[in-house]
């Protein structure tokens, strides 16, 4: 069961809940499973719960690796 989507935290609510936005579409989810969630974090949302925080530095690194892998094929 993996369908999960990265979304932006726009507001922290009481009782370990938060409002998240995906391109302006907003829903309220539970953030009880992730420590220290803050506004402007991106979290992975699955069935109404945040499961993990996205690490922006690692995301950048992945994109760089993807670009590198893509470029290799062109020169091979």
């Amino acid at each position, binding site marked *: 069961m993996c369908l999960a989507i990265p979304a932006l935290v726009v507001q922290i609510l009481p009782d370990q809940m938060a409002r998240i936005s995906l391109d302006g579409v907003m829903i309220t989810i539970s953030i009880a499973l992730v420590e220290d969630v803050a506004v402007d974090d991106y979290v992975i949302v699955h069935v109404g*719960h945040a499961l993990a925080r996205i690490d922006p530095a690692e995301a950048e690194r992945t994109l760089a690796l993807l670009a590198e*892998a893509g470029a290799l094929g062109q020169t091979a």
Partner: protein
Amino acid sequence: MKYVDEYRDGALARGIAATIAAEVLPDRRYAFMEFCGGHTHAISRYGIEDLLPENLRMIHGPGCPVCVLPVGRIDDAIRLAANPAVTLCTYADLMRVPGSHGASLLKAKAAGADIRMIYSSLDAVRIAAAEPGREVVFFAIGFETTTPPTAIALRQAIAKGLTNFSIFCNHVLTPVAMRTILDTNDEPPIAIDGFVGPSHVSSIIGLAPYREFAEAYRKPVVIAGFEPLDVMQAILMLVRQVNEQRAEVENQYIRAVTAAGNVTAQNLCAEIFELRDSFEWRGLGNVAASALKLRDAFAAYDAEQRFAVRTIAAADNPACECPAILRGRKKPADCKLFGTICTPETPTGACMVSSEGACAAHYTYGRFRTHQMQVAS
């Protein structure tokens, strides 16, 4: 959408496809299993197989909790819903799964059962709080990704002092299933050269549980993100491991998976759930220590105890090839029922009813490949 669109870039895909094509050894065949149903869906929905070289094939694994739920457990849920006092809350994916004698939750609802489709486990708690006269049963399924949300729901129900909320627990475990596939005594054994590991299961459990596959079974495992570029990069990393004769656990999904995983979620689940001795999986038979149940302390919230559920194992249609397909032994087109009697409208086996199932994915997105005809443009 940030962190989504960048990983769906078609131009990059073509580049990585070229790299994979350049790096596969021409006289070797590669077969990788993507365990997770979400990956099966992504591969079909984006047409990734069109971008892979001829000698590399993807085997669709059993990581679809809807697909592996046995008929007997669906029958249990239908029986629970038939109780006029019960409101059964379920994820929408389960509505059309066939039970015995062509029954399903969708048909039970049509016949009057109070079955509510919910998006989040917390919706079930909300319903229980809002309707104290109803016995609310949450039909909980899923691998390790979906188990923590069930735990949170239970914790909330307890905090609210609800006495009308219970869970019908069908949570299952990933590494055990992977081991079962590798241990299968099929003759000849299914050649799996490595695994594309699940994205969000791994966000929860971390990397350690996969080590046995690298160390004991000598099978490379690459944990892949959810988007198509992630899957392609993971395939490239697997090709490299195979070529270099390495067998390691690598993490492609570094932006959301850490080596330790989500310890908060792990601890919460350990508090609430324990292992069942054995659980029946469609396609894999009875598997020891592969599924979870609520601990005794939470017996009051365990629907199986509250409603004295006695699961009766039910046989699949003998012509249904789901068992072989779930183990990667056969392909959907190998099943006699595929596309004729068994379609997404009229599914016989669960591989067809869930859009993550190998058969549904092939039927819905890919069957034009097995129906190749000369097309005049």
